[in-house]
């Protein structure tokens, strides 16, 4: 049985904000199924009493003084904008 269906692949593509053609979805279904199948070998291990590792070093709550520091100017922030208007990022219609 396959581990991931073509419909699931299309749903995941939507979540990831990727446009996929029918052909690409087909190919991705096959490749992801293989990779996920490979990943399922982790199920051989009993990890019920194992704590997950999110970070390799023992550090938490890195705090610093709340000081005013230099920031970027509007011009700099807009330097790489694909489209802009009045110092703001311009995007296509959000409301229909």
């Amino acid at each position, binding site marked *: 049985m396959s581990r991931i269906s073509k419909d699931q692949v299309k749903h995941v593509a939507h979540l*990831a904000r990727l446009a996929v053609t029918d052909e690409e979805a087909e190919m991705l279904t096959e490749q992801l199924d293989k*990779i996920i199948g490979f990943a399922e070998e*982790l*199920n051989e291990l009993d990890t019920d009493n194992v*704590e997950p*590792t999110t970070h390799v070093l023992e550090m938490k709550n*890195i705090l610093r003084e709340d000081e005013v520091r230099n920031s970027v100017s509007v011009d700099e922030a807009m330097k790489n904008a694909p489209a802009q208007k009045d110092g703001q990022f311009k995007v296509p*219609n959000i409301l229909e």
Partner: protein
Amino acid sequence: MSILDKKISELHQLLHTKELSVTDIVDASFDRIHQVDDQVRAFLTLNEEYSRIKAKQLDEKLVSGADRGLLFGMPIGIKDNIVTKGIRTTCASRILENFEPIYDSTVVERLTEADTIMMGKLNMDEFAMGSSNENSGFYPTHNPWDLSCVPGGSSGASAAAVSAGEVLFSLGSDTGGSIRQPAAFCGVVGLKPTYGLVSRYGLVAFASSLDQIGPITTNVEDNAYLLQAIAGNDPMDSTSAKVDIPDYLASLTGEVKGLKIGVPKEYLGEGVEPGVKERVMEALKVLEGLGATWEEVSLPHSRYALATYYLLSSSEASANLSRFDGVRYGLRSDNSNNLIDMYKQSRSEGFGEEVKRRIMLGTFALSSGYYVAYYKKAQKVRTLIKEDFTNVFEKYDVIIGPTTPSASFKCGAMTKDPLTMYMNDILTIPVNLAGVPAISVPCGFSGGLPIGLQIIGKHFDEATIYKVAHAFEQATEHHKAKPKL
């Protein structure tokens, strides 16, 4: 012998005695780049005008007797996922083809303070995803030892440019082996520092819990120099560790008597080519001859590292790469008429195949209903892999094995099946999952192509790694071999 075959300490001596100027060094570097880079294809962007001006400025400093930085006058190449103010930084992706950062990464700031000369930006697998440089969105880089072979990846060009003598040294980044594997394939020295030793501020994130910037050089001493300049806490990176930075050069004593080496049986097992095993066994003999001892050890969860890595790194990548949406920077597709469609079209046109595949895998592993089965499971196995290393390091000073299961391979040989390509990193990935440091140093050849010896150390014990690597290097001639190009 070319100027760039010399070590930093030798070049500094020649600068000091005025036998050489910084301009001479920079000229030699650009001459070599113009001579060979149309074959190697290591550079995506050259910083020539600035570099030549900077060389003149440093020459004036030399005359005036002003204080000189640690890496005074040394030409460096920077992997193109490390941001450089005003200099195009693409991550070898079409989505960032015209991106000009508005700030310098911390490592680049520190290299500027150290008086290096930033010669240009180096090719890579797109967003550091790949093991051959064939995933570059622009063009593949070739291995200087055999132009029909890959240089490895993802810092393939960082290793190739150093191997070909185009620059004295370079910076790469290593998420699952991306410094060590290409260093092995190109016959140079590459270090992945302990997670948290070098600031990631300004490194375009792939997998934030694994990524580390590190130095690639032709010899161990230069590697220690370069790490010295970039290591240390940075308030701009909250994962940057607050540790004292030792004098790495002081650790290059050649003295390894009494050193205890663990050799994991999993690193010399099935899938590792005979030529690679032979070189590693010879290297262990050399170290034995210098007074070190070695024993077989076990890292029992090694075989689960690859699956763990692909789940975790792809999950993190899917979140990190969501910032590329065509709004604030990067490519925006013209083929859309609403916002969601604009996101989708821009990302689909801008990202390459492997990047999309990993975003898909990561999004799936993090999606509702699958998170516990895949992502959380992988985080738990990561704990087991990390504990493997902790256990071995209770009794041993370093762990030694090959860097890769084989030497470099022909371009195109592994592009069909993503899983086969992933197998390249099977001996380097566990190190990233555990966050420990490791170096790859040249240890000979198999079938005419370089092989790398991997030396793995305890957290923040780069000094011992350098000590062992340097002692091995001084006792052998491997690092003196240069590609005929």
